């Protein structure tokens, strides 16, 4: 730790004060005639500034703070265009932009430049990655978790064909704070995380996914390892009368997968209405060896949004969504998801530009309801016992925040409330003993968690230094009806008393970050923080279900201590007009009271699930450490062809753990203490190389991708985690904007039909073999809009 701080200070002290703003200018021409275009609207979204081109097609922004920006160019008669670029301190950027004449007036052909997965948001002193709708569409993604795995240092736990559970820098599950539209929480129903929060949001509804890595974004709750914000709300609808229709149709070969999505939006100055609907139907896929993987799924979702503008700068947004999943297969789990019914409703009230001091007020209330049903009906062992689990999970919450403009910076103060309720049981039908009553086992027994949070963030700047400080207090209480494992004759065999099943914690989380632009090309950021999370529903209250990567029944502990992450990040950014943009980040994380499972002797508790090796109970395992880095490089946005390179690595250890020595039958015969054992489920080093080439004035863009993943040999000895081999996988794609109505994207994943699996893919149940990734798969995605 000392070395890190010294290093940070060394960098901070060794830098000098230089200019901290730059100049953006440019000339805009007609792509066909090369004539200059006057009166083009040029807008920098994040700075909320804009200008028009003069008669010579020229525009200019002076004193643009150093940083990365998205600039929008629009003009009647031309397709709008978006460009991303980085402005170094004291740097002048001169752009030459071609706009494609509009085939039909007032119809959009948006051509984006963000082919390279490269987003640097300069004011953030930590790594902030965002995924745009454009890129999601281009990839033909099936699922949010699956798509996010394409980014550096984001991986996922695969248990079936879809609903992959995101892992960010080795942080996973409740260590990540996943929210929908700036604050709505979703508690998945499945104890085995068949349905992580990301699995309840339809990927085609996504406008943007924003990921803040590290414990630094506390605005919407505590994320120990990252905050993932899924944005589906429209933010840039016109306030004049309009009506828009979007539709898309995707086919993917390997899975015989079909996906459709439609959206209609209309409105005027008083508000807007948006209706969306989508359907996904995928069969089993074949892996690279030609083996069929039981991975099929069907999904249907529909949503409606109503926005009302009762006053200027006021917006009331009502949103309701229902999603249904059916027959979602999970070969790595003992059950399949038979039914998932999700209802998400929310109401937002936003007031912008309230006054000179108060910048904005946001209010939100929401309710998320999940009904999850799973069973083992189509599994080989259902010939002796059929088990059906039905779980109800509900989040009800609200938050309010006020943004103050204090001149020297911006202050955001917020308060939020969340109540999670979960109840569910497993019904077992013993086929070998006909006439027996159905055996019912609780999975959760009316468990409830209530969290009240108070948050403040100050973002300021002073002479070229940009800094932020934020803090959050959470008062978290939890309880449940008694956790009992019932026996038909003997009654209770395991129970927590009423006193011990309740817990209440007050957690303080805080962080600070600072960014310094060293010169016109180079900036360095330092962020440090501590985030504390209370144990989640599963860790506190789960009653004997195999939910880990290992084949053990897990048992909760209502008296677990909160887990805390103390982390420091250093991020370097370097931007050069020819060499492109570089970003290098290093992080070190010390986790106190790390929550994981440890074996319970069968003498204390025997498992209740078939084919498991025993029982593990959640406990606070002491200190764990994660450290790693990620590196990004991309050619400048206006370079064609473009290239980008990403690399990332995370190394995780647990200070002290116990390895139980097993005999050939898996029985524990001895133990030994292991220091600095590897943490389980940490992804290996990986690197990705992307190419693109813009043709036909950006209407046709072929892409190529090569991803190399090292073997993971740093695996947990105490958990008998298996190492995994490395692999190289390639993909290619294209996007073709046919006209203002049609766009087509397509490609091939796993081009060379490699048989491979990620380290975080779970084993196929009852085997030692990992779930392989899909083999070669072609996809084509047709978009229509009017």
């Amino acid at each position: 730790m000392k070395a890190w701080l010294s290093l940070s200070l060394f960098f901070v002290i060794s830098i000098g004060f230089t200019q901290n703003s730059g100049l953006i200018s440019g000339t805009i021409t007609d792509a066909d005639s090369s004539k200059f275009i006057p009166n083009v609207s040029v807008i920098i979204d994040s700075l909320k500034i804009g200008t028009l081109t003069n008669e010579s097609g020229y525009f200019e922004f002076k004193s643009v703070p150093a940083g990365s920006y998205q600039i929008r160019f629009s003009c009647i008669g031309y397709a709008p265009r978006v460009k991303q670029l980085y402005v170094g301190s004291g740097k002048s950027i001169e752009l030459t932009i071609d706009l494609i004449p509009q085939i039909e007036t007032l119809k959009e052909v948006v051509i984006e430049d963000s082919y390279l997965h490269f987003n640097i948001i300069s004011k953030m002193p930590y790594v902030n990655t965002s995924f745009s709708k454009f890129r999601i569409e281009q990839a033909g993604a099936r699922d949010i978790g699956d798509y996010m795995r394409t980014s550096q240092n984001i991986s996922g736990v695969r248990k079936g064909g879809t609903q992959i559970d995101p892992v960010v820098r080795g942080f996973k599950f409740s260590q990540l704070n996943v929210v929908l539209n700036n604050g709505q929480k979703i508690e998945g129903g499945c104890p085995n995380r068949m349905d992580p929060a990301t699995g309840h949001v339809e990927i085609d509804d996504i406008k943007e996914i924003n990921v803040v890595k590290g414990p630094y974004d506390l605005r919407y709750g505590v994320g120990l390892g990252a905050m993932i914000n899924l944005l589906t709300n429209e933010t840039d609808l016109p306030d004049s009368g309009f009506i828009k229709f979007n539709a898309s149709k995707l086919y993917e070969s390997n899975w015989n997968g079909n996906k459709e999505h439609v959206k209609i939006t209309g409105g005027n100055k008083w508000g807007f209405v948006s209706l969306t609907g989508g359907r996904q139907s995928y069969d089993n896929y074949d892996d690279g060896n030609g083996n069929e993987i039981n991975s099929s799924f069907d999904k249907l979702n529909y949503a409606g949004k109503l926005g009302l503008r009762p006053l200027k700068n006021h917006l009331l947004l009502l949103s309701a969504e229902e999603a249904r999943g059916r027959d979602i297969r999970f070969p790595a789990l003992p059950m399949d998801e038979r039914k998932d019914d999700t209802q998400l409703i929310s109401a937002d009230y936003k007031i912008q530009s309230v006054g000179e001091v108060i910048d904005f007020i946001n209010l939100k209330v929401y309710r998320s309801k999940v009904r999850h049903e799973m069973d083992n009906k189509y599994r080989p062992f259902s010939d002796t016992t059929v088990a059906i689990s039905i779980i109800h999970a509900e989040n009800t919450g609200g938050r309010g925040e006020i943004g103050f403009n204090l001149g020297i910076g911006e202050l955001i103060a917020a308060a939020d409330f969340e109540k999670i309720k979960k109840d569910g049981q497993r019904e077992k039908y013993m086929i070998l003993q006909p006439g027996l009553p159905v055996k019912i086992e609780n999975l959760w027994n009316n468990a409830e968690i209530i969290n009240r949070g108070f948050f403040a963030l100050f973002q300021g700047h002073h002479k070229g230094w940009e800094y932020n400080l934020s803090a959050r207090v959470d008062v978290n209480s939890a309880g449940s009806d008694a956790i009992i494992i019932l026996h038909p004759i003997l009654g209770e065999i395991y129970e927590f008393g009423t006193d011990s099943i309740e817990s209440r914690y007050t957690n303080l989380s805080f962080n600070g970050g600072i960014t310094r632009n060293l010169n016109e090309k180079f900036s360095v950021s330092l962020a440090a923080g501590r985030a504390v999370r209370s144990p989640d529903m599963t860790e506190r209250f789960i009653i004997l279900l195999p939910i880990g990567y290992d084949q053990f029944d897990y048992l909760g502990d209502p008296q677990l201590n909160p887990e805390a992450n103390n982390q420091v990040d250093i991020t370097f950014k370097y931007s050069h007009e020819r060499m492109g943009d570089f970003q290098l980040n290093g992080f070190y994380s010390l986790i106190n009271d790390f929550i994981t499972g440890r074996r319970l002797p069968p003498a204390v508790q025997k498992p209740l699930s078939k084919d498991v090796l025993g029982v593990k109970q959640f406990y606070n395992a002491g200190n764990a450490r994660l450290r790693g880095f990620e590196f990004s490089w991309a050619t400048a946005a206006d370079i064609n062809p473009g290239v980008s390179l990403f690399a990332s690595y995370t190394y995780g250890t647990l200070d002290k753990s116990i390895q139980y020595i097993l005999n050939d039958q898996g029985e524990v015969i001895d133990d030994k203490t292991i220091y600095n054992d590897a943490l389980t489920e940490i992804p290996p080093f990986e690197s990705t190389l992307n190419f693109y080439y813009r043709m036909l004035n950006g209407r046709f863009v072929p892409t190529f991708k090569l991803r190399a993943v090292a073997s993971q040999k740093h695996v947990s000895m105490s958990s008998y985690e298996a190492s995994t081999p490395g692999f190289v996988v390639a993909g290619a794609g294209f996007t073709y904007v046919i006209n203002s109505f049609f766009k087509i994207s397509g490609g091939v994943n796993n081009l060379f039909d490699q048989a491979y699996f990620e380290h975080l893919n779970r084993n196929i149940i009852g085997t030692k073999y990992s779930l392989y990734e899909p083999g070669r798969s072609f996809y084509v995605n047709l978009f229509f809009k009017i």
Partner: protein
Amino acid sequence: MLSYRAVYLTKISLFVLLIIAGCKDDPPEETEQKSGRIEFTFQHFLNGQPLQFDTLRYVNEAGNKYMVNEIQYFISDVKLFGKKGIKLIDDWKDIHYVDTDIPDSRRWEVYDKITPDEYDSVSFTFGFAPDKNISFMYVNPPEKDMFWPEFLGGGYHYMKLNGKWLPAGQTSQTIPFDFHLGRGQVYYSYPDSITGFIDNQFNVSLPASGFTILADETVEIQITMNVENWFKDPHIYDHDIYGGYIMQNQEAMEMVKQNGHNVFTIQINKE
């Protein structure tokens, strides 16, 4: 003189090296062990010789000619009686399943660390104490398949000793017998009016004429089931009387329980 850019790139390289260097941790360490260990082995004899299965070569005290196909049973709550106190084997496992068809089950490497001491006897419960005989507690075979039907009291068989005997008057046609022990029933009227249940587990005490367990020493405790004794002392068990199925015959199971007192013998082997 180096340019600023070069200096910065050097710093970046240094930074990466530091991260990578920071990834090398101390090697795993192991704790020392300063107690003794025991392991149980289970043998099955008949008339002083290793039991031979599936062959109609034995004659019991009642004169039944019979064969044994398989024996499956649980022992639990194993205790070692030493000068420094009684050691209950339950740190990791308090019930052990033995199956003559599963060689691995005939060896139990005990997790518990055994205090070095002089021990004079070993005891165990044949079957389970009632509070440990819980229905559905085993979900995996082979233990799962020992279930005792719920309508007969639930829980698990303490023992299944399956074989065949030649009924009186028969010369070649054998009949299977299920010499099973588990929870018995009290009937108001047989077979469907059960008014109560009787637990038939029993304690087996095996004086071992003293043995010593030293630190870092593993002692093998060999337990032998002498099958012929199930059928003769104090009750002569006649298959022609009790037939092939005794799970609903508490009188027969009581005989089995009482005959069990001298079925097991013990031998201590040191490495």
